[in-house]
């Protein structure tokens, strides 16, 4: 992983957390719509499950430590988001990717709600069911912009994932005689 990719990941995580706290969270309250989760899903769709789950775990842990609930809840959930989105990515259409992000983020938000309800021995566990559709819908809308942006960013020369380099050898009789 290059230094530029790490810097971009840190910057993207902080930006997403700030926008979540100051704009997205209050705007869609009481639904648990999460911009960082959408970002994790978008990165996983573009870069695969390995990057997705690493990025999801790191971003989730940062969000956990910055909030009042126990650390590890969002790290676990967003790890799952990165893993699932990286595994199901087909990169064929933006619409299909956005829908995938919406559904996975909805499931992730419901899982986090249930997990917190279990931890706190009670709480609004029913929200996991009732909020699923609104969260998935809003996440899908957000995903259109985020996935397009992440695709454009991760396809630049500086941020492109390093791939193995193959040397093509032409074997056969030479035509030039």
């Amino acid at each position, binding site marked *: 992983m290059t230094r530029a990719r790490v810097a971009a990941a840190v910057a993207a995580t*902080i930006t997403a*957390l*700030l*926008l979540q*706290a*100051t*704009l997205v969270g*209050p*705007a869609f309250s009481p639904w648990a719509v999460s911009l960082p989760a959408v970002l994790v899903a978008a990165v996983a769709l573009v870069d*695969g*499950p*390995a990057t997705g*789950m*690493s990025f999801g*775990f790191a971003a*989730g*842990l*940062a969000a*956990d*430590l*910055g*909030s009042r609930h*126990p*650390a*590890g*809840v969002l*790290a*676990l959930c967003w*790890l799952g988001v990165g*893993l699932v989105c*990286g*595994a*199901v*990515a087909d990169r064929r259409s933006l619409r299909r990717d956005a829908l995938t992000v919406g559904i996975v983020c909805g499931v992730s938000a419901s899982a986090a709600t249930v997990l917190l309800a279990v*931890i706190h021995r009670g709480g609004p566990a029913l929200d996991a069911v009732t909020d699923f559709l609104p969260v998935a819908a809003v996440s899908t809308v957000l995903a259109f912009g985020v996935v397009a942006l992440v695709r454009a960013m991760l396809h630049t020369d500086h941020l492109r994932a390093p791939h193995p380099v193959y040397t093509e050898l032409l074997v056969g009789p030479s035509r030039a005689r």
Partner: protein
Amino acid sequence: MRRLTRRQRVSAIVLAVLALSFLTLDLGGSSLEGAHGGVRGALGSLYRGTDSVIGPVRRWVQGVPSAGTNESEIGELKKENADLRGRLAARRSDEHTTAQVKALQQAADGGNHVLLPARVIAYGPGQGFDWTVTLDVGRVDGVRVGQTVTDGVGLVGRVLHADDATAVVLLAADPGSGVGVRDTRTGELGVATGDSGKGFRFVPINAEAQISVGDVLTTGPAGSTSFVPGLSVGTVTSVRTSADGTRSAQVRPTTSPTEVDLVGVITVAGRNLAGRAPLTPGGGR
């Protein structure tokens, strides 16, 4: 669907165990309290900076869904407010009317008069006089020209003209008319003339009469005034002696000519002779 490599599966399991370890540690005690505090502090200062830029946008976004609702709610509240103000005004008006009716009743009881309640329905000049009001009662109700009009406390005027359904009253404060009055303290008689809205100007018949500030003037005497005697006209507020020794006084009216609303036309003035016995030497009867 892409198959995970063995390395990816192992990484996922390790990270999940790590997350559960953090969860257990944080639930178990205060091991991560320092980390929580550090990240919260760093993010908190960033939140404040970001909110100062994004806050207005967020408030606008939050207001969009309820914009129409707020407008209709504001409209409903305005309507409700106007309705309540109307009710309050009506209630005050009712209280005022009740007080006026009580005053009229007391005047009827005290003076042994028969009073016909009437509402002022118009103000304005009429028949060449400036200070008149029109009442909603007329000849059909028993109103006749010359009858005295009171508000229950003081003199208002006298009926100048009566139709079947309405009557025009010349206010006592009219500058062109005078009222025969008596100073209740000294018994001195005189004439109170309307003084262009400032009240009355009182000139006693006796040029040397003693007039003092605070003296109360009433209509009178009986038989020599066109008004029912004994109604309060006003209170002396200042006394003036001219160069030739003639005294006059400025009088504040008991009833403001511009504030009359519910009045009573005295259709039958009480003489109140009942129980009055002749006086004999020695006080015996």
